[in-house]
């Protein structure tokens, strides 16, 4: 192999090394972002603590992804005196209550017209249902997900 040919081969390999080096660097930045989801000066993520995340807001003005922070007893319904007000026609005025007892969260339907469902299963009125973090809770056509870091 004459020297020019060798140099040309070297330059071609250098191009590939630099190109894939760049792609690796891009991959590294992505990996670091994923490894430290809260770092990098981004605005704060969802509020900490137990909360309800809107999955489907129905005709209420709650955008999917918005969150309600839960207190020990949280009343849910269309009336304005509930802690979580859902302005949807399929939600009753006093629809349900989510409360904390014996170290766990419970959802209790208050005899609503269109019912309350936990993970798709209908909850009997006035019979508290045990909830786990990640459960999908449906009031009428509004769907929310319970996120509770301590469970």
């Amino acid at each position, binding site marked *: 192999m004459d020297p020019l040919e060798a140099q040309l081969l070297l330059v071609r390999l*250098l*191009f*590939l090394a630099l190109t894939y080096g760049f792609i690796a*660097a891009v991959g590294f930045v992505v990996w670091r972002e994923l490894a430290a989801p809260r770092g990098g000066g981004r605005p704060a993520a969802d509020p900490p603590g137990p909360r309800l995340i809107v999955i489907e807001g129905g005709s209420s003005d709650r955008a999917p992804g918005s969150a309600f922070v839960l207190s020990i007893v949280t009343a849910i319904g269309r009336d304005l005196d509930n802690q979580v007000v859902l302005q949807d026609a399929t939600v009753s005025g006093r629809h349900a209550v989510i409360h904390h007892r014996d170290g766990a969260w419970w959802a209790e339907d208050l005899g609503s017209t269109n019912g309350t469902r936990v993970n798709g299963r209908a909850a009997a009125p006035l019979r508290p249902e045990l909830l786990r973090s990640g459960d999908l809770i449906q009031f009428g056509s509004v769907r929310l997900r319970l996120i509770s870091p301590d469970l």
Partner: protein
Amino acid sequence: MPGRPLFALLLLAWLPALAAAGTGWLSQAPFGTAALVGLATLGPAFALLAILVRRRLRIADPLLLPLACFLMSLGLVLQARLAPALFPRHLFWSLAGVAAIGAGALLPVPLRLLSRYRYTWALSALALVALTLVAGKEASPGGPRLWLELGGLSFQPAEPLKLVLVVFLAGYLEDKQDLLARGDWKFGPLRLIPWPYLAPLAVMLGSSLLLLAVQRDLGAALLLYGIGLSLLYVASLRFSYVLLGTAAFIAGAAQLHSRMPVARIRLAIWLDPWSDAQGYGYQLVQALMAVAGGGFLGSGLGLGQPTVIPAVHTDFVFAAIAEELGLAGAAAVVLVYAILGLRGLRGALRATGFAALLAAGISIALTLQALIIMGGVIKLIPLTGITLPFLSYGGTSLITSTFMLGLLLRAEAER
């Protein structure tokens, strides 16, 4: 945006193009110096842009600018090698493209304005495309008349139409999002929105496609249809639209096939380019031989014969990449487009409302365009002529792609 990784990545994105030009200096080809001059101006331009973006945008994706820098630097070197006579113009448009990223990202006008005047944009873009039917200029004698000329500058209205369509659809779909998701109107097993709400969308998309079909600009038509369908799905999350859209696409393609000789030729060449290797199939056959000749490592820039392919500096630039930079280089380019699209979609997930749909639409538009032409050049799908974003020669294409990238940068910041 954290500063250090951005500037380090920009440098890393710029270096491979410099190494690619290296074979030019070693073999004393004239494009070596031109490429060096080009890179020496484009690099600082990107650095300046990065400084401005970092100062003005509270949050912005640190990867989008380096990815664009990688593609545009490589494009500069490729153009210096493939079309040396046009290189000064390409350098000018590349620098203007950097400015266009800045304009898209930093213009002190709220993004909402784009959405508010969407009918104005849509009608003007359609009017410009319609104007090419009467006053259009062709690139080669007998070819499609896609260009408008004004005072020595030529301009391809189908390119901005792509951006305008994204803006129009994003604005319209955001307005009607709740309607779309609900789908009260049943059509057999499909749930759709009532037709009066679908009509403006169908008229806009339909008239764009019709115009482009009459113009024989099949690549742009395919791209616009793909953008429209993807955005409809993103906004509604209803698979029924995709099914319906695919059925309509098959029906439309069958119509085109029976009515347009161009479409028939394209299909025949895709199935067997060798049957007419000296005629209609010439371009594709030459491209395939170039891709095969490149092998894994490629011949090195300036050491292959890609210039025998017609339109190698515009639509067929990917064949030149495969021949001179090899499978490894071509795969890297594909990877960079994929990352660009994924980062754009990630930005869309973090934005809300119009900005989210705009970001999704732009990401889809850029990657789909790259996919259509790269797939066409390597005979994966029937060939339809469009440019490869950021790499092909062509002012309108570069400015449109870069301006879209700028908007993408901003969409995530403005929420």
